[in-house]
């Protein structure tokens, strides 16, 4: 219908109808046209990075990844450029959030772009990227550097017995608690019981339907002795432990240990809620320490490693970021030189002192200068060493969805534990059978 035409609709009935139909269909076509997505590229034989090449490197290196909130990426690039003298490194932000950065990285890798030499990769992306032949094999490089890296962080770069990236910094969940109101938790059961005592003692975590809920759930499941896949890659989530943890979490929401609002919380809302002073416990990442120190709670909060399951042991889920060399990099030697610098024990101390991130070098945690800036370094190291990786699979995104959607359904009360466990196992089995 042409709104500019000053005629009455009565005189133009036929034209109106045709124009309406045409407009509707053309718009439907145009609006839906963007659904396609890109077809995969051809397979490639993965080339290997030469650990010795870093010494003779020159030229420019471009590192691409998520928005540099703490300044660590740009800071490392600058420090490297200054220290090296021959190679210049620069950091390019290609996404505001982890998800966006992944989409951007995948687009560049699928398109065989030479724009980036190094990608900053989340620990859960390794298998997917490696299986597609997008990364340079770093096995020799990692083996040369192995004695200075924490073993669990090295494991996050492994896929089919080869290493595809080098760990840059790691991450593990911590419990922040109000020393004036509640006790330092030894077990999850104790934490939940303590949190239910008074209205201001509650526990906040990341319970929104997203990756963070998978992490929060697995932290408890691992400490209870459960697992998602066993060493042979078989689905083992349909277990007594899974049921126990799900019931425990959902009871916690019912009896007031955890505020129901956590069903909408990811990391930042959980932190903000805790900062209001209305809660006793918070589960979050190490970088929150610096932010809490700038609030009125600075003198009253404590930091503890994740607690153990009653009768079990403490565990956690390993987070963190790795450095992967693009298969299409035009300066692989420069990329190797950058990795060598970023993983030195000396620079790893700065990772902790200057940016409040968890080093991948164990000695850094007991360094006096680090301990002064990061008094919870001992607790952090305990968390990192006890943490286990999330399931290693090229279909990890689907596995994680199967976990967080079903856990969420139990927490929000729409599904019974029994149904959710069955569905979770089914969906993970289906995901693993993906072509």
């Amino acid at each position, binding site marked *: *219908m042409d*709104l500019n035409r000053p*005629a*009455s*609709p*009565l005189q133009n*009935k036929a034209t109106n*109808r*045709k*124009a*309406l*139909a*045409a*407009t*509707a*269909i*053309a*718009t*439907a*076509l*145009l*609006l*839906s*046209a963007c*659904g*396609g*997505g890109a*077809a*995969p*590229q*051809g*397979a*490639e034989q993965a080339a290997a990075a030469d650990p010795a090449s870093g010494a003779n490197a020159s030229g420019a290196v471009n590192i691409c990844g998520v928005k540099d909130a703490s300044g660590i990426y740009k800071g490392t690039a600058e420090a490297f450029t200054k220290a090296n003298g021959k190679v210049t490194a620069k950091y390019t932000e290609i996404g505001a959030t982890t*998800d966006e950065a992944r*989409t951007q990285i995948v687009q560049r890798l699928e398109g065989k772009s030479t724009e980036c030499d190094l990608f900053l990769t989340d620990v859960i992306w390794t298998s*997917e990227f490696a*299986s*597609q*032949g*997008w990364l340079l094999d770093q096995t020799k490089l990692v083996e040369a550097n192995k004695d200075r890296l924490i073993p669990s962080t090295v494991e996050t770069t492994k896929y089919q017995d080869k290493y595809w990236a080098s760990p840059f910094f790691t991450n593990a969940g911590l419990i922040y608690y109000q020393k004036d109101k509640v006790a330092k938790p030894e077990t999850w059961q104790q934490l939940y019981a303590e949190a239910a005592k008074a209205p201001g003692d509650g526990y906040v975590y990341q319970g*929104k*339907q997203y990756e963070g809920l998978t992490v929060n759930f697995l932290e408890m499941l691992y400490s209870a002795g459960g697992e998602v896949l066993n060493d042979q890659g078989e689905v083992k989530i349909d277990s007594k432990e899974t049921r126990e943890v799900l019931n425990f979490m959902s009871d916690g929401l019912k009896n007031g240990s955890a*505020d*129901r*609002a956590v*069903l*909408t919380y990811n990391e930042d*809302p959980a932190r*903000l*809620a805790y900062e*209001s002073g209305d809660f006793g416990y918070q589960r979050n990442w190490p970088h929150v320490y610096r932010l809490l120190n700038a609030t009125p709670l600075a003198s009253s909060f404590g930091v503890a490693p994740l607690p153990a399951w009653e009768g079990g042991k403490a565990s956690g889920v390993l987070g963190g970021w790795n450095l992967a060399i693009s298969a299409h990099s035009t300066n692989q030697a420069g990329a190797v030189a950058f990795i060598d610098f970023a993983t030195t024990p000396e620079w790893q101390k700065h990772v902790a002192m200057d940016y409040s991130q968890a080093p991948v070098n164990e000695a850094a945690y007991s360094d006096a200068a680090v301990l002064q800036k990061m008094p919870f370094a001992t607790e952090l190291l305990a968390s990192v060493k006890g943490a286990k990786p999330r399931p290693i699979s*090229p279909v990890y*995104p*689907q596995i994680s*969805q199967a976990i967080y959607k079903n856990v*969420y359904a139990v927490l*929000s009360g*729409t599904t019974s534990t029994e149904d959710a466990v069955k569905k979770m196992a089914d969906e993970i089995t289906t995901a693993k059978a*993906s*072509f």
Partner: protein
Amino acid sequence: MATRTISPSRGPAKTSGRDRAERKLAFRMTAPSLVIMALVAAVPIGYAIWLSLNQYSVRTAGLSRFVGLENYINALASREWWAAFGQTFLFAGLSVTLELILGTAMALLLNLAFKGRAVLRTVVLLPYAIITVVSAITWQTMFQPNMGLVTNVLSTLGLPGGDVVWLGEHGYAMAVIVMADVWKTTPFAALIILAGLQVISAETYEAAELDGASKWQTFVNITLPLLRPAIVLAAIFRTMDALRVFDLPFVLTRGANGTESMSMLAYTQLRENRLVGEGSALSILTFLTVMVVSVIYVRFAGGNIRDVAKEEQ
């Protein structure tokens, strides 16, 4: 759809030589735009259809296999698709209805002669100018439990809803998403309806007044029927948009609590899981759904326009 070119009511068509020549010329003149339309619309859709008939390996790069309609069969057999289908239609039904009612009211107000009308007409469009993701984040903040504006006001006034975790509960989450959409796109509906109001001639109203019709009678018997084409157009635009809703649930709930839409499902398969074939099938299904709905609109609501015209004659 729009292929009937000769209306029988106009009598038999006589085609002279000149007519034919003109028609040829018309075809030649429109050919370039038809080609562009084909390139812009048909090629990507054809490609998406091709992708949807294949599966692309997530394990081995470059490996793919032709599976025919398997992706469609799997999608149509899954609970997720039908849940998303129902939720999307619920969202579209609620939001479009509210938008049309409020949009009509808003258009009637803006059509009155008053001082500052031009300014107000611009101002009411502001919500529509805000990027959806930004407005979604604003709504999320307002409905935040404990600290949000809405929850705080409700609990201060002692009204129900103050202690509800809006985005964490079934029903409530959908309500927030509908509200956010209505707030944002009612001005758009109002604008289209306002344009429809302005073409209704003043004489019709004068005649009604002379006949002693009340304000309500005038509205029901003159304004509404004459506005129908504009309302139908607004309804078509808004319904098609609403059926493809993505950004609001993506930001507000990530699809939790019965708010996952068809487009979100397709996005998850395409982007997060890189299941290109399966995701493309979902996109095509979404596209077909939208298309069927718009055809139905044009058949029935469009038919209304004709009935009204006949009655008037």
